[in-house]
């Protein structure tokens, strides 16, 4: 059982100016699920790229079944039985499921006719194995995200993979889909496939993995040790070199400050029903829920991007009709930090100053006929400095910044716009733990010093409990209730989960903490 099937020994790799990996080891047992963990930039992706033949190591060797591996490209790794499911989707959208699965094997016979019927039949075998009930002739762009994920796994398996690397396979899955995926992975493991599992979600890793390798700054923080006996704190300690803690901030009472944003019985075209929500000035309200609970959609409805069917929105106590995002920003001073900063939050190929300035062009342009870089700079620079964006110059392209700094730029953009209400959607996705802690301080400070009302959307429970003054729980496009944050992880997380799984028919009750009258009113 504990036979080592694959070993990466003493792997080193440098890129110009960076030592990405230094003498890293990883050994993979036959029929096991091996976690590969580390913060962003710790070297996980580099190691995966070396194992799958995309990069070549400077030193060290890869051994498969005690044979030395020489990989000259992804094709070599594939032919040796090393499959990978990359983090981003790698399917051809309009091609059928079966054609996507067998795309690799088409390469060898470029001139022979494709026999689609035979291909569909062959695909059926893999789909059955993964319990994926779709017609192999369906174009993949008709599938759900989870189904696409399974198609990619089928694709990797169809190449007779003995070793299968999964890079953040659950990042875009709902918890139900994740469960399905895990049962598939268990079955694969039991049939003798060795899996490497990369994830930022430690709960998942603990649930599914037998062994763990942790990388920190390009070196092994631990090397293929059994998962047994490690708890969450131990793993975090390995990853960041110290333990993660929920900072000991004082709870703040915001029940007396003015109401900045209030939703009354709001129904939206995207499916929300009777949503009531209140955010006071200088208050951080957390909006917690599972993926698909309708939180981002609610944010977009507030911003005027999705239509509100009935109910009212009040900003600073007076009714607001927000028909588009420009309205939200200019008239009502509501800003939105997108969960998808690369696609929606920032213009990656523009400089910092252009990205932050985008919200103030209009405002500055009215006062002066010409927009010069200097006027923008004068306006923008204080915020960049305040957020301590690490950059040699404001003209640096946002593309070249780290994830954490990019996130700071997307927050700075709204500070510059002088928003009174800021909706922050999943601020720490793809950001390492150190930057995350800093970002948390920043958000907290924003509420304290600038009086900004903050609506925080997050699926990260520790983050929620760290930041929020009050947590509103959503499920299935409805508000299930809200809880004042006591900052005690155990009781809070239990209370939140109880709210999520509560049946709609049940009477709302405020669990745990001393109920505050005006919070209850929001129910």
């Amino acid at each position, binding site marked *: 059982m504990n036979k080592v099937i694959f070993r990466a020994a003493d792997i080193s790799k440098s890129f110009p100016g960076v030592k990405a990996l230094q003498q890293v080891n990883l050994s993979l047992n036959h029929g096991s699920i091996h976690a590969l963990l580390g913060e962003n930039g710790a070297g996980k992706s580099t190691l995966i790229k070396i194992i799958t033949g995309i990069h070549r190591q400077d030193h060290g060797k890869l051994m498969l079944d005690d044979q030395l591996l020489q990989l000259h490209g992804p094709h070599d790794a594939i032919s040796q039985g090393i499959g990978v499911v990359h983090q981003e*989707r790698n399917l*051809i959208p*309009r*091609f059928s499921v079966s054609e996507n699965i067998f*795309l690799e094997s088409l*390469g060898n016979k470029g001139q022979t*006719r*494709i026999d689609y019927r035979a291909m569909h039949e062959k695909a059926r075998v893999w789909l059955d194995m993964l319990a994926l009930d779709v017609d192999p002739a369906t174009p993949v762009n008709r599938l759900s995200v989870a189904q696409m994920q399974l198609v990619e796994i089928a694709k990797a398996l169809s190449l007779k993979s003995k070793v299968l690397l999964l890079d953040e396979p659950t990042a875009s899955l709902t918890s139900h889909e994740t469960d399905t995926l895990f049962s598939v992975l268990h079955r694969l493991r039991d049939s003798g496939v060795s899996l490497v599992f990369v994830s930022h979600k430690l709960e998942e890793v603990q649930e599914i993995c037998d062994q763990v390798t942790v990388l920190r700054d390009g070196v092994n923080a631990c090397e293929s040790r059994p998962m047994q006996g490690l708890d969450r704190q131990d793993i975090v300690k390995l990853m960041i070199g110290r333990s993660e803690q929920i900072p000991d901030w004082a709870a703040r009472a915001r029940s007396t400050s003015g109401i900045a944003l209030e939703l009354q019985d709001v129904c939206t075209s995207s499916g929300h029903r009777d949503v009531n929500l209140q955010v006071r000035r200088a208050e951080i309200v957390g909006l917690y829920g599972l993926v698909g609970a309708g939180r981002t959609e609610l944010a977009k409805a507030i911003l005027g991007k999705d239509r509100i069917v009935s109910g009212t929105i009040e900003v600073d106590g007076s009714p607001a009709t927000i028909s588009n995002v420009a309205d939200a920003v200019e008239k009502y001073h509501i800003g939105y930090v997108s969960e998808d900063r690369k696609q929606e939050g920032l213009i990656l190929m523009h400089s910092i100053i252009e990205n932050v300035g985008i919200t103030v062009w209009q405002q500055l342009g009215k006062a002066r006929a010409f927009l010069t870089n200097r006027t923008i700079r004068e306006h923008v620079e204080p915020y960049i400095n305040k957020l301590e964006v690490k950059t040699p110059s404001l003209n640096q392209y946002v593309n070249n910044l780290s994830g954490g700094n990019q996130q700071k730029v997307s927050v700075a953009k709204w500070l510059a716009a002088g928003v009174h209400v800021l909706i922050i959607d999943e601020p720490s996705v793809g950001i390492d733990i150190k930057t995350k802690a800093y970002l948390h301080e920043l958000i907290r400070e924003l509420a304290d010093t600038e009086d900004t009302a903050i609506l925080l959307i997050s699926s990260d429970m520790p983050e929620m409990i760290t930041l929020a003054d009050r947590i509103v729980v959503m499920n299935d496009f409805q508000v299930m209730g809200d809880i004042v944050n006591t900052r005690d992880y155990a009781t809070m997380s239990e209370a939140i989960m109880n709210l999520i799984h509560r049946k709609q028919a049940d009477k709302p009750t405020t669990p745990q903490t001393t109920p505050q009258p005006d919070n209850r009113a929001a129910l």
Partner: protein
Amino acid sequence: MKRQLNRYLQSDWFGPLLITIAAIALVSWFNPSFLSPFNIQILLLAIAVNAIIAYSQMVIIAIGQMNLSVGAIGGLVAISFSGFMEVWSIPWPVAAFMALSVGLTAGYINGLFVAMTGISAFIITLATLSIYKGLNLGITEATPFYKIPETVKALGNSNFIEPLPWLVLPTIIVTFCLWYLLNRLPVGRFILAVGGNEHAAELSGISVRKTIITAHAISGFLAGLAGIMLVARLQIGQPTIGDDWLILSFAAPVIGGAVLTGGHISVAGTLLGVVIVAIITQVLVLFNVDPFLVQVVLGLLILWAVGLNKLREVRAARSMDELGAGA
């Protein structure tokens, strides 16, 4: 039955087919001479050449790029073909073969630059458009070659069976070959795969460079073929051949449901797109509308087609959502 109908409604060729049939019915009702053998022959001649022009752009749209130089390649091949015959007295089949090689090479060069530099095909083909057109004008000094062999003239203007002109033969063959290539052969699937998701295609072991070069070479070959066919039809080696191809070359594939970002085209749809454009052009002539208005109509047709494609996309997304909500 309903499902079958739904499938047709979702396919790219169904809408254009309905429009084609409706247009033919309507026009021949107003003007019976529309379906006269002579008029059918004129229509088919226009369709035969324009279809090849549209295909040469379609192949590039399939990889998610643009080829602005289709007309310039067509023109260069046309004057090469007629020049080989007039100046060097080369027999026409050999001259045709050599001229087609010129087209293939021109396309290959486009592909090579795009694949090797990674610069967008728009810019590369804008530059080669100028180069190929410049070569054309430099060689001809803007005067046509007049000495075209009688056989070539006959092939371009006579019928092999009434009322089918000889020129439809290459178009029929090319149509079938392209369909087979893009739907049944791995090489063609690679072209669509690269257009659909270049990154994924590369990670699946497909050589993106080779695929891009192949597509451009095919495009150059087809543009050249259209050029040769036009020489036969016009009975003269005009240096201006190809100057007015660009709009049509995009219009027909788009009417046929092609996605300009790549990965999805329809050979049948493109052919029907050409037919629709040809019919509309004819109708404007039959009803004595100013021929310059044809341009306006073509532009409107493109807008209508992209609008329709967008609508279908939105609808498909919505029905996906409903499926998701139901599950």
